[in-house]
């Protein structure tokens, strides 16, 4: 939703989020998705995929991003 249709995050979406996450977790998760989304869109125009930078094969944001995503 954050990536493809931000305005589509309606009451139903937020209600489901709050069934599983605290507001603080929602803030952190949303910020992580936003950061990752934006930078992945940039490297896609470089024709580079997530975790595919040759000099830094483990440079993905995810803590266990040893494998290309």
């Amino acid at each position, binding site marked *: *939703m*954050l*990536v*493809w*249709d*931000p*305005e*589509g*995050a*309606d*009451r139903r979406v*937020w209600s489901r989020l709050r069934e599983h996450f605290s*507001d*603080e977790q*929602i*803030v*952190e998760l*949303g*910020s992580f*998705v*936003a*950061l*990752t*989304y*934006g*930078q*992945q*869109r*940039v490297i*896609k*125009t*470089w024709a580079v995929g997530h975790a595919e930078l040759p000099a830094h094969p483990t440079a993905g944001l995810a803590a266990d991003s040893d494998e290309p995503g």
Partner: protein
Amino acid sequence: MSRGAAPVRQLPGTADEIRARVPAVLEAYEFTRDNVLRRGVVDQDLKELCFRFLADAPATRDVAGRTERERAALEWAEAIAYDSDRAGDALWSRLHALFSEFELVDLGCAIGFELGYQHWRRTIGLAPRDD
């Protein structure tokens, strides 16, 4: 990426007040804001033009009177936001002719950070930008 009616606000406060609920989130945002969004090797006016384009500011859609650097930067911002296939050899040839590699890294990362932050703001019912 439709721009329908703004969703109902689910988290009160300004964007920074919401980020401050998780101090590390606010700290990460402030670092990118102070070091990439508001500083860097690329002219700040050019970054702001791209940020307004991402926020769908109508004035940025008219490229008449724009410099070649502005046109190339806006086309790259469009490719980043909507269709990476538009960043083909022809656009990259122009970008390399008009910008140093340092500038391309700075500008590209700034556009990416801003794109993500604007989407995050929109999901919680805030305008894409404060201005």
